């Protein structure tokens, strides 16, 4: 060996584990981010996540958590690597190597590591996402809208993250070699991380901050919108969640440094606690990242059970097996055709009711948004013919539901959902109704509220009013509501499917509209603004099995057996997206926890040897190792799970000021999910513990 380059190469070969660890960490971070971003920006996903909707915001929020987590993890891996290299670099400097010489060598190898790992991660990210998605399609559910297409533009975000990894590695390396004091570098590998005094009140203050941050972050945007009439930028509202981060950090710091155990148990865990205390910053940083990722993963995981339980309970609670409605000018099956189709499928219809409905204009308030320097503000405005409402006569309502109802002329009843709520989309407080053809106007009292999930969003009026207000309405403004029950609902799927297809086939292009499309609103929007945005967002009957069609078609029938059987298919993209996110986040947690524990083994090998020399038994050493490894796993797991579960429950409660039965049951199913994931986490913990013990020869 005659050149410095050869020496460096030889040393690199001897330290391939450390180089490998850094490479794998960078690769893993870029891989996860690329896979996530490819999925998040895929047109397949964007098509079903409404722009500005909660689902898209949730996906984005978890993505931000994943980015923070992967970034911190990469920085941690880089600092670990440089710490390992410090002795070597220090010796070279002490023996007269020039900083410029070392800098170029270190930069060269860091560049190679960063470039190769980022390139590999970025290249394999899309296949990973695609592979997982294909597995879902193969084993879980496959629908016509599930084939995954990627947007090449997504790679710009993956590229930006790769640039961050590359720049971070080079900057850290540059700063590291640039340290002026050689002694610091020589001694860096032997240095413990200093940790400032951590008072015992940090623990409770942390919990308080987490709670305050969660409440502020959730409620302040609503305050801005409702009280100040201002839609603040999302970046601003995110600031109110910052106390959560600070609180989590304090909570974890207190747990690592002080612990929560009572004084008499202090000596029992003194070795494990003191070792963790003096690697405090790294440990707490790692735990914080894990906590955030666990919280994000659960947030994504809870989506399916909450949606599923709510939907299934809703289907079961429906008062009728089959319900659909149609505009009278459409060629949708009437009673005779339905009965004939039922006969074909050997389905026995036990009851059948058809009831007329009329579409009238109703008054109400709407918001006028203005774009200003500080963002968008809104003002409330009143309009006598704001939108349309579907009206049933009281006798029609009685026929459909069997409920006795007696309304006076001028009195109307709004039909809320089974919980008596308007779901944020139906106020049910019309004061003036108008026949849009005769312009006949009635002032009405809408104080009476009814409850029915299937008829949600409609009004009921006095029979005489109904007859009077129906005058002159064309078929396009008259509709029919059909309710019928069958003998064996669960066994009538094929009939339900055939009837659904017949309803769709019989509907014309004029009703291929979204649920939010409204003929009255359309009229005044076009008159005042020249266009109506829902006209541009039409549905396609050939995509009748897509989630967009099933969830948002204005005339979507409510067939219990069809809705239940097709639930997973209808919501497949949503569910699989959130399952994918959960898998990505949990995988990151497992890798970070494993890496952190193996680092503990590498860093503390000497300490364990010394403890052995002091007479510590294998059992004592094992207990000490277990104390550290279990803390790396349990503290973030308990904190992350507890925080997100409480936060989720808070959101559910805050939606309508109570927990409904379906929400309560959904939260119960989430607990079962937590149990299952905790078992998996426990398995990874046992595997890691075994590996760490093997590395320490315990």
């Amino acid at each position, binding site marked *: *060996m*005659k*050149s*410095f380059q*050869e*020496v460096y190469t*030889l*040393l690199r*070969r*001897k*330290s391939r584990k450390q180089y490998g660890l850094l490479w794998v960490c960078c690769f893993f971070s870029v891989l996860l981010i690329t896979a996530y971003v490819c999925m998040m920006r895929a047109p397949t996903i964007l098509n079903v996540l409404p722009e500005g909707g909660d689902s898209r915001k949730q996906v984005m929020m978890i993505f931000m958590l994943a980015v923070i987590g992967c970034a911190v993890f990469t920085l941690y891996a880089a600092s670990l690597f440089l710490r390992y290299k410090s*002795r*070597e670099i*220090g*010796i*070279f*400097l*002490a*023996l*007269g*190597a*020039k*900083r*410029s*010489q070392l800098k170029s060598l270190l930069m060269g190898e860091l560049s190679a590591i960063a470039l190769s790992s980022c390139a590999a991660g970025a290249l394999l990210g899309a296949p990973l996402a695609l592979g997982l998605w294909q597995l879902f399609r193969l084993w879980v559910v496959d629908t016509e809208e599930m084939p995954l297409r990627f947007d090449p533009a997504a790679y710009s975000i993956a590229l930006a993250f790769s640039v961050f990894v590359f720049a971070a590695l080079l900057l850290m390396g540059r700063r590291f070699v640039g340290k002026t*004091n*050689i*002694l610091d570098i*020589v001694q860096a590998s032997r240095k413990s991380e200093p940790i400032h005094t951590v008072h015992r009140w940090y623990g409770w203050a942390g919990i308080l901050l987490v709670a305050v941050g969660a409440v502020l972050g959730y409620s302040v945007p609503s305050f801005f919108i409702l009280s100040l009439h201002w839609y603040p930028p999302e970046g601003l509202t995110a600031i109110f969640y910052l106390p959560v981060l600070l609180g989590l950090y304090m909570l974890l710091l207190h747990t690592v440094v002080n612990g929560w155990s009572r004084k008499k148990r202090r000596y029992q865990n003194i070795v494990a606690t003191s070792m963790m205390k003096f690697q405090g910053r790294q440990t707490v940083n790692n735990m914080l990242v894990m906590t955030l990722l666990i919280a994000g993963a659960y947030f994504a995981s809870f989506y399916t059970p909450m949606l599923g339980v709510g939907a299934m309970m809703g289907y079961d609670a429906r008062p009728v097996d089959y319900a659909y409605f149609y505009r009278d000018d459409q060629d949708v099956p009437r009673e005779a055709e339905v009965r004939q189709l039922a006969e074909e499928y050997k389905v026995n219809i036990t009851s059948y009711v058809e009831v007329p409905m009329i579409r009238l204009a109703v008054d109400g308030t709407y918001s006028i948004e203005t774009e200003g320097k500080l963002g968008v503000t809104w003002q409330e405005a009143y309009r006598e013919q704001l939108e349309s409402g579907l009206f049933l006569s009281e006798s029609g309502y009685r026929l459909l539901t069997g409920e006795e109802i007696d309304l006076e002329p001028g009195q109307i009843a709004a039909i809320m959902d089974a919980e008596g709520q308007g779901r944020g989309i139906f106020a049910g407080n019309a004061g003036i109704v108008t026949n849009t053809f005769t312009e006949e106007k009635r002032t009405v009292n809408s104080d009476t509220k009814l409850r029915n999930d299937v008829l949600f969003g409609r009004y009921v009026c006095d029979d005489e009013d109904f007859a009077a207000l129906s005058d002159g309405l064309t078929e396009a403004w008259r509709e029919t509501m059909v309710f019928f029950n069958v003998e064996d609902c669960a066994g009538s799927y094929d009939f339900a499917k055939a009837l659904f297809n017949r309803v769709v086939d019989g509907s014309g292009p004029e009703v291929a509209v979204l649920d939010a499309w409204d003929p009255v609103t359309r009229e005044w929007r076009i008159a005042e603004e020249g266009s109506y945005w829902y006209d541009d967002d039409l549905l396609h009957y050939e995509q009748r099995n897509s989630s967009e069609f099933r969830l948002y078609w204005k005339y979507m029938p409510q067939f219990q057996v069809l809705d239940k059987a097709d639930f997973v298919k209808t919501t497949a993209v949503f569910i699989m997206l959130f399952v994918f996110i959960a898998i990505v986040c949990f995988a990151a947690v497992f890798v970070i926890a494993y890496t952190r524990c193996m680092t503990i083994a590498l860093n503390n090998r000497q300490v364990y040897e010394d403890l052995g020399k002091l007479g510590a038994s294998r059992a004592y050493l094992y207990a000490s190792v277990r104390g550290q490894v279990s803390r790396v796993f349990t503290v973030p797991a308990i904190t992350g799970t507890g925080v997100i579960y409480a936060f989720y429950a808070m959101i559910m409660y805050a939606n309508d000021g109570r927990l409904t039965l379906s929400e309560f049951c959904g939260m119960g199913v989430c607990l079962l999910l937590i149990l299952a994931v905790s078992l998996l986490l426990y398995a990874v913990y046992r595997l890691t513990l075994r590996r760490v013990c093997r590395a320490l020869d315990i």
Partner: protein
Amino acid sequence: MLKVNDLHKSYQVGKATYEVLKGVSLEIEKGQFVAVMGPSGSGKTTLLNCISCYIPADAGSICLDGRELAALNGEELAAVRNRELGFVFQDFLLLDGLTVRDNILLPAIIGGSVSQETERRAERLCRVFGIEHIQGKFPAEISGGEKQRTAVARALINQPLMILADEPTGNLDSKSSRAVIDSFCQARDQMAATIFMVTHDSFAASFCDRVIILRDGQVWRSLERGGRERLDFQDLLLDSVREMGRE
């Protein structure tokens, strides 16, 4: 060879400033084996680190072979460390991934001058220090004494003007310590090496030509061995240490 004049160095710990060197002055001639002794906190290691150019002094001057070290830039200081100084550390600081022979050659490799002559010199150093048989072994496979003798050989490979040793026997048993001190003596006698050693160990210091005793950041006494027997010189050192303790 080495001239230190009125050297000052202080450390900042929080808001407090601790002056560790308070005007140290000393001179070392070529071929001398000099030890610096003193109680903990007297400034021995700080003095060595300043001379090694590891930390900058606050005031005063350090001249090595007529060159003022403070006037040199980073690249020039690196060249001085590589060619004109040789280092021996308490915990050896050998690279675990290199064999004993490669570790010895490392300063020459860093300096970019591994000639056949250098390789012959490495062979000779191995022979002189009795580590010829372990040339192909890695640091993890040899004893503490062998590691330190490897470090001494490494310090000499570039034929430096001076060897700087920081507690070279601090981590060794008495047999290994003796072997390391013998290797310093051999370096002085056979290669005319100049050695500047910081030590707590009066036994190790008793082999030196001169011992400088520091106290509270100043030179308290400088003792020449002269023609004394080693044991007599050790007694003198111990007496001086006792006397310093009484003051």
